[in-house]
């Protein structure tokens, strides 16, 4: 039936390299996620409480991140800014693109989380003598974390999958590395099949760990 001869040997020979590249993927995705969470919080708070230019900058960020393709965002940080004489390494392009995108999506999630908490809680906290920082970190954020935990998990999975766009800007994360080997050996199908399996396993591990984490920390 198949006239095609599958050659899996080169794939297995470069499996260690692929696994190492998958660690690169996880590393850049985690860093983008971490930065995304921090900026996402800032964006959410700016949109809820900020006024004037702060509000508009945060809103523009969120809407741009959510309403344009991630690939476009990566290209913007890649050769779009290159036109202005700002050149980044592929790693920085991927990191900046992913962070920009993730921060936008998380900003919207967090805003929903903050809005779900009755505003009386913040006022009560302030009346008890907490300052704004204390009220946020001790009263609001712990509750928001609970609400946005699952959307956040999904977002992290998205970031891992989205980091595959690194291939298109020349960053050698898992997909980029796969592309590199595939074009060296012309075993495109075999390489990408193995990579697909690695991604699948990675996503399953992430979801499993996040469930474990949730059952440990979000017990009622």
């Amino acid at each position, binding site marked *: 039936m198949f006239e095609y001869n599958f050659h899996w040997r080169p794939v297995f020979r470069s499996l260690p390299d692929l696994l190492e590249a998958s660690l690169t993927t996880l590393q850049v995705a985690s860093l983008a996620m971490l930065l995304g969470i921090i900026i996402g919080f800032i964006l959410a708070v700016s949109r809820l409480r900020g006024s004037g230019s702060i509000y508009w900058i945060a809103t523009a960020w969120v809407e741009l991140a959510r309403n344009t393709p991630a690939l476009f965002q990566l290209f913007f940080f890649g050769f779009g800014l290159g036109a202005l004489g700002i050149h980044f390494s592929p790693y920085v392009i991927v990191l900046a693109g992913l962070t920009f995108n993730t921060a936008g999506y998380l900003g919207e999630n967090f805003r929903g989380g903050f809005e779900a908490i009755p505003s009386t809680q913040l006022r009560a906290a302030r009346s008890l003598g907490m300052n704004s920082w204390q009220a946020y970190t001790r009263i609001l954020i712990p509750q928001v974390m609970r609400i946005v935990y699952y959307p956040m998990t999904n977002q992290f999975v998205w970031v891992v999958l989205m980091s*595959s766009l690194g*291939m298109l800007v020349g960053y050698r994360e898992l997909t980029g590395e796969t592309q590199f080997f595939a074009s060296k050996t012309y075993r495109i*199908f075999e390489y990408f099949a193995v990579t697909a399996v690695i991604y699948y396993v990675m996503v399953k591990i992430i979801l499993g760990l996040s469930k474990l984490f949730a059952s440990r920390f979000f017990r009622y």
Partner: protein
Amino acid sequence: MEQSVTVFSSFSVQDLSFLGEAALRTLWISFLSITIGSFLGGFFGWALYEMKIWGAIFLNPLLDVFRSVPLIVQLVLFYNFAPIVGLSLDAFESGLVVLTLYTSALVANVARGGIEAVGKPMRIASRSLGMSYLQDMRYVVFPIGARAIFPSWVGVALGVMKDSALVSVLGYVELVKASQVLITRTQEPLLIILVVGAFYFALSYPVSRYSAKLEKRWSQ
């Protein structure tokens, strides 16, 4: 006499029509994959709901693959897999198949949620009134469920529209690929990239705003 040959030429009005054509291709492949994928996904969602065991054993893990492997890997994989089984598909057809399956996997979950959103008592009541299973589905479950999932379906559809940018990897000249061609020729990356971004934004932003408004109105 020395003749100078210019490789690069600046951005012209003709290029706008080239971009416009490419934008239509983006719209066309998105429209087709969202439409077919939604029907397919609706069917899968129904199957997941009705056939709990078979769905959990076969269908769900299968659909999970589309959600856990980067779209770019799926595209490259399928594009190189099709010739192996004797299909000769061009970039558009391969892209369409993958995007459609991807959409259906995302819609399946949403659709199952929609069916589950219709209360059991309501279903029992409609059957007690003498409606057949199909009538129950058509006149009770569909109107209520569709309304419940409409915002998330819009989210999926917009996501697919944006993700269709990735079909450029296969060489299909949609908007992002066209912008790359133009950038190579005109050496004006920033301008072209901003035009492309503005197109996606102009398409996605009003729709997402409208769906958010509907969601708010319906939840009251």
